[in-house]
């Protein structure tokens, strides 16, 4: 494994560990220092001073799912865009045009969703 590569990613890995560990250490310090005086009422879910009714975990709006899905599709597009942006200058014209077509196709999907009113919340 090349040394620079290893160094770079070791830094990222250690950052992940420190991010987790640092924040977790906050929790531990707080757990040691903070008073504990909870009563039976303390644990009740906050709902503007009224005892909560019904269950908290009710379903989302399906529209949120669609936005997440669009994001997924466009994220995949990003995965293709980055390598393309890296090399398209060195490749024949077909590479450039193929990405234009790719974008247009996905843009069509966006327009379709737009037309169907998915983007405008009814």
């Amino acid at each position, binding site marked *: 494994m090349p040394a620079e590569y290893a160094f770079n990613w070791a830094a990222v890995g250690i950052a992940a560990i420190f991010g987790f560990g640092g924040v977790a250490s906050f929790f531990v310090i707080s757990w040691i220092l903070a008073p504990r005086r909870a009563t039976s009422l303390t644990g009740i879910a906050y709902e503007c001073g009224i005892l909560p009714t019904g269950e908290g975990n009710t379903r989302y709006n*399906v529209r949120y*799912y669609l936005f997440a*899905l669009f994001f*997924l*599709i466009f*994220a*995949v597009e990003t*995965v*293709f865009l980055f390598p393309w942006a890296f090399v398209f200058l060195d490749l024949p014209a077909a590479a450039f045009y193929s990405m234009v077509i790719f974008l247009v196709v996905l843009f069509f999907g966006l327009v379709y969703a737009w037309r169907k009113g998915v983007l405008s919340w009814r």
Partner: protein
Amino acid sequence: MTVLEFMLILGAALFCLGLYGVLARRNAVLVLMSIELMLNAVNVHLIAFARYVIGTEAIAHVLIIFVITIAAAEVGLALAIVLRMFRNWETVNLDRISTLQQ
């Protein structure tokens, strides 16, 4: 055990776990997650080949990209179907849905 073999066994383990999930789980969302595991097992094999086996260098990488793409499309569509099922039958239990269908 070489690294290649380690990766291959790892991939095999992921694949079998995924397969077990697909067969044994009855919540549709969990089944989908298991399918994701299986796809990832394939990716692990591919990356191991790309690194250590002759003749598979960049092609394996490209294949992984396509696997990820297909997985994304599959998850989006399959979950939409799950949502549809849930709307129609108020459940995501596959056993129950197959009985309801009859």
